[in-house]
């Protein structure tokens, strides 16, 4: 196991005050530079001395990266806006409460005061084999220690297991996918905008990275369009304890319902694969159908189609099936179960 030390290895710290300065630093130092947001992921890595960057670029002094603005009925959220700010923002609460609910279930109040939205979606996996500094696939080696006959893998993936079985630990990521958010990625060579679901990478595409961010790039803004404003939302996170814990499985749904018919839906789950998964097949199945127990059951069954249990995580399959079922069925029905 990695030895946890309180003394971080030495690095050169930069605290730019503008996005342009930060990008110039990232461009200058390339893969050697470590981007520090709220530090909730970074300090684990640095204190464990598993990552030893020579340069750390701290974004906390950049005012233009912080804050929430209403734009065309939607929102633009700066990358370093804290989760607490997201939770308490009146427009988020009024029109996009799915995100507020998801953000409010992240860790503990102290952590939410410090953690940033961009950091929450971009954080690395919490697989302890990987974070212990052993040479697993994700760390550039040739084995997944979590996927061996004797592995302790209760929290690991049941879907899209491709050599690595680590999971995305983010709570806000499924909510942002359900809200049809877009991520603005900026570098010295310009900007690119990716859909929330395309921001995340599975091991089959890139086993060493969880997002499409490349050295020199910065996630600067998260845009939430008006598309799903005021829709019917469902958020549920199952974890071992009610505070300060990562999800075992979480589910986020944004749904528009006419009468009792589902006219539009976006559904995403987290902690079941290395990336938060948008369940497009389930969305297609339930669109146009009545919001009934039957539809919800069919959705739950389809959601876990192809799921494979590891040694200790078989429970995640019925858990995910039931969470998707409840998300489609909605709050009223969930309350009676």
């Amino acid at each position, binding site marked *: 196991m990695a030895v946890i030390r309180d003394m971080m290895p030495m690095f050169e710290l930069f605290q730019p005050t503008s996005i342009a300065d930060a990008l110039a630093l990232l461009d200058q130092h390339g893969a050697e530079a470590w981007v520090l947001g709220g530090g909730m992921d970074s300090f684990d890595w640095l204190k464990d001395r598993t990552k030893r960057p020579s340069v750390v670029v701290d974004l906390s002094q950049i005012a233009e990266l912080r804050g929430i603005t209403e734009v065309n009925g939607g929102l633009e959220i700066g990358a370093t806006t804290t989760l607490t700010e997201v939770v308490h923002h009146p427009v988020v609460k009024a029109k996009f409460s799915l995100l507020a609910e998801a953000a409010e279930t992240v860790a503990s109040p102290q952590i939410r005061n410090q953690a940033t939205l961009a950091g929450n979606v971009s954080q690395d996996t919490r697989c302890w*084999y990987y974070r*212990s*500094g*052993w*040479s697993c696939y994700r*760390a*550039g*080696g*040739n*084995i*997944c*220690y979590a*996927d*061996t*006959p004797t592995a302790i893998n209760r929290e690991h993936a049941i879907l899209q*297991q*491709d*050599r690595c079985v680590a999971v995305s630990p983010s709570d806000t990521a499924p909510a942002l996918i359900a809200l049809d958010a877009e991520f603005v990625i900026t570098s010295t060579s310009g900007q690119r905008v990716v859909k929330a679901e395309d921001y995340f*990478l*599975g091991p*089959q*595409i*890139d086993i060493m990275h969880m997002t499409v961010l490349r050295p020199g790039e910065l996630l600067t803004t998260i845009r939430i369009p008006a598309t799903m404003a005021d829709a019917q939302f469902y958020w549920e996170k199952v974890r071992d304890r009610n505070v300060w814990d990562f999800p075992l499985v979480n589910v986020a749904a944004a749904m528009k319902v006419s009468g009792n018919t589902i006219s539009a839906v976006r559904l995403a789950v987290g902690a079941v694969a290395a990336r938060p998964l948008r369940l497009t097949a389930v969305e297609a199945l339930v669109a146009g159908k009545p919001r009934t127990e039957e539809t919800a059951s069919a959705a739950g069954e389809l959601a876990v189609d192809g799921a494979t249990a590891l040694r200790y995580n078989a429970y995640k399959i019925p858990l995910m099936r039931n969470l998707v079922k409840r998300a489609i069925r909605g709050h009223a029905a969930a309350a009676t179960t």
Partner: protein
Amino acid sequence: MDFLTWGRNPWGQRILTHISWDLFWAALFAGLIFLVAHASYMILSSNRKRGKTETDALEAANKDLPALITRHSFMARAFHWVMAFSMFALLFTAFLPIVGIRFAWVEWHWMAGLLLTASIIYHIIHATFFMDFWSIWIGPKDIPDFRAEMAAELSGSDEGPKTGKYPLGNRLYHLALVVVGLSVSISGMVMMSRVRQPIFERNPYIMADTTWGLTYVLHGACGIALVGLVLAHVYFALRPEKFWITKSMLFGTITRRQYLEHHDPRRWNVKGSKPVGR
């Protein structure tokens, strides 16, 4: 530049993980330098061509030979192109992600690997029982040929030795491919036990960490060697003076004139017997 990458296992032991991918760029660069050097050499020595008179005379004396002579049978050509397809699929799926083109490559890679392995097994059986097995191998008997070839090159002569069915360079290439191809194929089959696939049960513990490290290094080194070998093969296949061989791999035959110009009929006798294809 590192040649190998190392890691640490849960028992704190330093373990080999694989070769450094810097070597891929080194192999690509070395391969391209060789191509440029060879192409330059061929341009500078373009005046050295075997005289037409000798071939005219041979053709006149061998009118009884068929106008088209089978060089590669249909089954041999089918093997070659299946193997080529699987080889390109393997190289692209292995190295495109390393150069930054990201896609789900693992499944395509092992499927292409299975195709390559199947084609190698087929080729071994076909070559052993249905072809002139020894015609492709090199041995002490080739030393005089090698000397003559070198002497011709160094003296600027246009009279290099005529060969049997396969020129010496061709046979040396085949030998290299046998070693590298079998190594990459066998190591790849073993590595399949680390990924999920429907052929056999996944078991990452069939070997110790060190043995796994060596297997990955062998597989990676062979993969990189194949980059250079395939690059050279494609280059020679496209060279104008070798293109008649490439065409024979497509259509199966060479002309009587090509046969008499490049081959020694005593070493590859196609008279009086059904031509043996390869």
